[in-house]
């Protein structure tokens, strides 16, 4: 999990944005990506297609695609390439392929 450089509270607060990650409010500095919000909360981004194991952001520069999440109902968004905006609804993406089940969403 990541935390703010300013946890000592000594600095004046910068502009911030509040978004929802898996239904919980989360506040990050403005300009930070959705992936930063995930890392701050220690959230999972996606479950993999083959084994359903949990993944979280790895590279933070758009290369690995392990940060795929659902943002405002749109799946397969790369969290590290999307700047967080107020009110965004970010959800873990269940990409696990299962036989005989409807897709998760």
């Amino acid at each position, binding site marked *: *999990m*990541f*935390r*703010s*450089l*300013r946890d000592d509270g000594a*600095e004046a607060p*910068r502009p911030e944005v509040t978004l929802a990650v898996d239904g919980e409010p989360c506040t*990050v*500095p403005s*300009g*930070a*990506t959705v992936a*930063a919000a995930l*890392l*701050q909360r*220690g959230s*999972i981004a996606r479950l*993999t*297609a*083959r*084994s359903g*194991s*949990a*993944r*979280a*952001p*790895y*590279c*933070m*520069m*758009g*290369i*690995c*695609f*392990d940060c*795929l999440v659902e943002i405002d109902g749109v799946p*397969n968004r790369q969290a*590290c*390439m999307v*700047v967080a905006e107020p009110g965004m609804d970010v959800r873990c993406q269940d990409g696990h392929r299962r036989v005989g089940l409807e897709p998760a969403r």
Partner: protein
Amino acid sequence: MTVERFDLAIVGAGPAGMAAALEARRNRLRTVVLDEQPTPGGQVWRNIESVTTRRPQDLFVFGSEYADGFSFAQRFRACGADFRPGARVWQVEVATPVAAQARDPDPPGAFVLPSGSALDTGPDDEAVHVERRRTGADRHLFYTDARGAHHVAARHVLVATGAYERPVPVPGWTLPGVLTCGAAQVMLKTAAMVPGSPVVLVGSGPLVLLLAVQLLRAGVKPAAVVGTVPSGNYLRAAARLWPALLAPGYLSKGLSLIGALRRSGVARFAAATELRIEGTARAEAVAFRSGGREHRIAAQTVLLHQGVVPNANLWQSLGLEHYWDAAQRCFRPAVDTWGNTTLAGVLVAGDSAGIGGAEAALFAGELSGLSIAWQQRRIDTAERDRRAWLARRALKAHWSVRPFLDRLYQPPSAMRVPADDDTIVCRCEEVTAGEVRQLALTGVPGPNQMKAFSRCGMGPCQGRMCGLTVTELIAATQHRTPSEVGCFRVRAPVLPVTVGEVADLERPSGS
């Protein structure tokens, strides 16, 4: 559909792309610069404008080389290039078919670089003459931004897509809580956030040292820095030390980082082997052997690094001639001293053509910009060569440290070719080293066939994370060279695009 036309389209606004844009604009070329990120600077100067203007108190964390990026970004902003941030290029199309190139009477030697830098040959006008004849044709670029898909055309394309961190396929590297050292730097630069303790840095390369010191400045003391440089590397590197001493500043900077780390009292381990990351739902610990003993260090965040490799997908999708660099352990495009490739009108500059570092990329970008201006008859040969002289000299000086660094920080084979069969090689499709090795033993001849049999490289990252590992795994298993084995054939689109986005291209722009 209306297509915007430019003299030059640059992909990537890092050091190489910005320097090329400055040079192109100085020669009045209509230039468009496309970059994935919201602001210029590339990864090395990521978010430099905002850090400088909105949180200058943090600049000391990153050091002066980062701060230097600000004035450069300012000049880039003012140069008159059409900068389009948030633009992800997924296809470049060249009007001249590759087949026509093959018939060209060019001496092939003009392009081929046996090893190391592009600078051992002089200005090779021969190679570029051909380009000069052909620049009438357009190159087409397709990209997506927040508003949808777009199409631009340009007489020249410069690929300046930089580098990314070499994937580190070790047991446990897919666990949440495991990131790259570069990812932690991005968090510092863009979100002013630091990893939760205990944090352990594992790997080799200048970035490990730099990040460790940056974290210390930010008030985070890593639980350990675990080095993976095998002791044999020091000897191999020492043979290349002499030219490295001539390179400006690299060694003294490295030594001062090592000194700062030593004084900090952070636990350090050397020549670690049998590295694995333990944990069930998240990373919990790093285990390894060092100094003849087993170690296990508790960690909430594990930051990996084994150097950087060219971000090659875009130029690979163009089918350029390329070669395996045995010292850098990666594929590089065959380019002449200006960055011209085997495809007319397409140039590659900076780290995407081979790892030379940010400062070298600045001069490489400048040389590409000069060559393009010359090919489009904005400057004559005398002016081009006069202007190129200084850049060439500087570039040569920066490259002279590479043979030393490449050998010192060459990842040990265990980090490139996982010994443990259960280690995941392809993160997207969860293909293990064992599966790839097994298929290689049954005679699967190369990465493309491996793709068909195992699905490795078929996920959304399109082989960026597993490509080099698959090549080296096949090579090691079949006792062949990576050069013989080859790499994934990359096809456009190099990034996932939706059918809807492609369909949108047909609509008149602005609707």
